[in-house]
């Protein structure tokens, strides 16, 4: 086949999700000719729609902090800049301490977080009850509060990136499965799918839980494997809860869990199973609802009367050290990773998407190098995230 006859794109993004859609938007905005391929029938249909929508900058490492701060800027100003309502709400995050152990963990983190200038503080029990009056006073001793974190609708946000990416000329092909990444002379030259073949200079792997398979199509190995988490949403009630509540104390069968009231009035919640449940299974189990319900009602008794509407299960594309993998492959020219978001793809998405556009153009910010070192595909993966 003669490559010159293939439709040619500057960048082919694999995956139209939390990372792929904003990446396509920023790449297209920067003037690149972009094609996005996804095997799902429309945007955000794999892991994005299963995310609950929390957005925080209050992480423990500078890469995620910087990327999320930028994401928050983008999410919070989206409506005024582009007009779409993505249901952004600056509700803040509260990490509750149920005992001294959690208090110590959270206060230790606070030092790092404050050193990056994050707006986060320790609140004692009384102060915390001012912010979240419905917490069970018998179950908490205090917690951290970061008022500038927030939440938005993953579905609406990814859809907004998608529709504006199209306005900038990006092309999205759905129901199309990538079968081969064509490499010639150590360089990416094209992508073959079950429907067509395209020429390109850059492939961006934004395939979420399937990142490892997509890497292997080019003979590359990337240490991403998914584990599954279950989530649910309730009916809508009048607003009564501002921040996202995170309880990091482990319970039987689970480590942390978190919930918040979305702008629509609905409570959305999710739990981290312990031990992790590895694999691609996204079918609901009977153990999730009773487990998470008991912990939530215990922490916030008012929730006992709210009615659960829907439940689902989604995948966290995990890396060995809990940090994402962003950067070009060394083995093949033009192969770019933005994978392993460890369940934070939605909140990191705009920041990472912008970063991939800078990586493609080579016009990096001075602060980018530190981020890229931390998120390097070639790092040791020895560390452990302090706060998931």
């Amino acid at each position, binding site marked *: 086949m003669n490559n010159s006859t293939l439709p040619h794109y500057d960048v082919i993004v694999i995956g139209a999700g939390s990372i792929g859609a904003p990446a396509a938007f920023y790449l297209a905005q920067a003037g690149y000719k972009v094609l996005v391929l996804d095997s799902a029938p429309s945007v955000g*249909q794999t892991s994005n729609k299963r995310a609950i929508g929390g957005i925080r900058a209050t992480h423990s490492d500078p890469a995620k902090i910087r990327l999320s701060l930028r994401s928050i800027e983008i999410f919070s100003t989206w409506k005024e800049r582009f007009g779409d309502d993505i249901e952004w709400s600056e509700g803040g995050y509260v990490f509750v301490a149920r005992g001294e152990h959690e208090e110590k963990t959270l206060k230790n983190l606070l030092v790092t977080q404050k050193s990056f200038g994050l707006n986060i503080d320790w609140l004692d029990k009384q102060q915390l009850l001012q912010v979240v009056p419905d917490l069970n006073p018998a179950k908490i001793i205090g917690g951290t509060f970061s008022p500038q974190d927030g939440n938005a609708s993953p579905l609406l946000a990814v859809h907004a990136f998608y529709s504006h990416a199209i306005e900038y000329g990006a092309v999205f092909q759905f129901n199309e499965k990538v079968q081969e990444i064509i490499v010639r002379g150590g360089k990416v030259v094209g992508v073959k799918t079950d429907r067509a073949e395209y020429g390109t200079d850059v492939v961006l792997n934004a395939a979420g839980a399937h990142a490892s398979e997509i890497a292997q199509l080019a003979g590359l190995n990337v240490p991403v494997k998914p584990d599954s988490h279950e989530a649910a949403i309730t009916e809508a009630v009048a607003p009564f809860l501002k921040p996202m509540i995170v309880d990091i104390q482990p319970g039987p069968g689970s480590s942390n869990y978190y919930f918040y009231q979305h702008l629509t009035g609905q409570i959305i919640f999710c739990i981290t199973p312990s031990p992790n449940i590895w694999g691609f299974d996204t079918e*609901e189990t009977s153990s999730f609802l009773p487990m998470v319900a008991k912990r939530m009602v*215990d922490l916030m008794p008012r929730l006992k009367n709210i009615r*659960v509407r829907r439940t689902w299960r989604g995948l966290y594309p995990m890396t060995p050290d809990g940090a994402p993998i962003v950067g070009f492959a060394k083995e093949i020219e033009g192969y770019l990773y933005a994978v392993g978001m460890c369940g934070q793809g939605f909140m990191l998405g705009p920041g990472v998407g912008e970063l991939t556009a800078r990586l493609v153009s080579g016009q990096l910010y001075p602060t980018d190098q530190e981020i890229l070192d931390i998120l390097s595909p070639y790092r040791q993966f020895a560390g452990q995230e302090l706060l998931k």
Partner: protein
Amino acid sequence: MSDYRIRQHPILPIPEREPVEFYWRGKKYTALAGETIASALFANGERVFGHHHKDGSPLGIFCANGQCSQCMVLADGMPVKACMELVTAGQHVEPADGLPELPKVTSSPSFKPIIERKVQVLIIGGGPSGLSAAIELGKRGVEVLLVDDKHRLGGKLVLQTHRFFGSTKAVYAGTRGIDIATRLEKDLSEHSSVEIWLNSTVLAVFSDKKVGILKQGHDYAVIEPEVLLVASGAREKFLAFKGNALPGVYGAGAFQTLVNRDLVRPAEKLFIVGGGNVGLIAGYHALQAGIQVVGLVEALSECGGYKVHRDKLARMGVPIYTSHTILSANGEDKVESVTIAQVGPDYKPIPGTEKSFECDSVLIAVGLDPVNEFYLKAKEYGLNCFVGGDAEEIAEASAAIFSGKIRGMEIARALGVETAEIPVEWYWTSEILKSKPGTTYSEELPEIETGVVPVIHCTQEIPCDPCSGLCSHGLIYIDRRDIRSVPTFLGNSYCCEVCEKCVAGCPGLAITLVNYRENPDLPVVSIPYEFTRQTLQANDRVSVLDTEGAELGQVDVLSVHAIENNDRTLVVEVNAPREIAQRIAGINVQDEEVTQPLDHYVAHIADDTIVCRCEHVTAGEVRSLIRAGYRDMNEIKTVSRAGMGACGGKTCVSLILRLFREEGITREEITEYSKRPVFIEVPLGILAGANGQENTTHE
């Protein structure tokens, strides 16, 4: 105060119930003990229960089945479904306007473990199919847990006041649905290995092969069955037309629930959309409850239901408009009129044919879909599962009784407790009972005009045989090998003794006797009649109609009587001129002016055709997305919120699929909603095993 209770009914007993006082918006009302808040409000003339949080449009009863969440009210501060929650003395009920305030809870809850159990067989649904299966399993001592979301067993049988069709031998044909329910319930009670949970709703079949159940409204149970039988019945399809979300537009099931279960009158003047059996029977039930039926529209050129059901309505004076459709339900915050139009061969309305009728309610009966999501999930997860009744295939309840019996046997065999083969003819009978109406022959009246002549106004092949066992001399014949054949009278004019058993016993009310013996020019015609005796007396003058509903003239009533051993069907004898005697098939029970169109048609401009009732998404919004290229319903959901509401896409899916069809999009191009639990919304505290609802305060 207006009274909307049914105080007299030709079939249903009116039970004595204690009055209970409660408050609606601070005003004191009287309810009856044991009734739902919805019925109590309807009985007091309240039909608007709240307003939608999105657009402030009025909300009321739609499904009356705990599925749709349109009837939310605040009962003592707690948001509840008015159709499911029983009214209590002194209760303060307020409309749910906008988003409800979540009640405060001031004390630390305590927890108990949720119920976790293994059973041999779990049956979802205690309707005709589930009950029949449970009886077969109970006979064999199999451990069965049967769950049903209603307060009593029987499923939709308990709403059916008419005599059933089908096979007398196989499925109680000739008996009224309500009585079949009681019989099945009694048969089941003899088997101690069957445990029954009423008022218990299945929430989900999970991938770990366990089934989550909201038990009796206040406990969460996780059941691990060896075998699952899904007998969860059907749900009603809905229709997109302007004003379709106005209070007063109901599904047929809701209407039958209010009228036949709760004995309240939700309408004075009803208009029916849909000429299948459900719509036709509901119309008949309305007439029996003293509700006027203004008319019925059917888009096809013939009604899809049994012709005898259709005729029953026509010969009581209900106009049936075939090749017609509803254009709009009109009114400010409740239905005041309906506008219909004739449709062409493409089913599109023909301009200039619009007509409007005054009415206060519109009943939608445009078909049923199986409630099969539990079955599909169970199959997907590899659970040993069976499906019966409407959940398997939409058909008559008689077919569901029989398929349930077969499923019971099949499960017993699967468990190794039954070794006998299932008779092959059972499957044949099952197919016959499920069959759609066959050929319709033109009515041939007997040529004889002497003696006594039975006239069988039954000209369509349907699975029904009770008449063949009614004649004292065995002279009504139906081919036993295939009960779908049309009955014939084998005798001559000397045979009949006028016992009138055929008149009173035909489930289709389709047999009359014409007795020429006393006066050949003014014979006596015996006509079946299922209305209260008070409505008709000897010497009344009545208008009689033929099978098609054409008026034949005014005649005098000789007597209104019940025959021995007959079950509530009366026989009316009239004197009629020879020329019309054999053609008489019924007595008009309607005021003629009720069925007259208004002198102008009511145009409905507002684009308020709702496809998603929960989130109030219009057909226009969804159509514009389809035109913009959307093919994944999940993406439509993202952008419009259609399907994101409380009901979980139970109503909107078929409407959206229909919009796709109208836009010329093939099914292959469309991705349907991902289906996720839970079946109905359930309080977090119940899932948590939290004790009690005490210490709840309101702001």
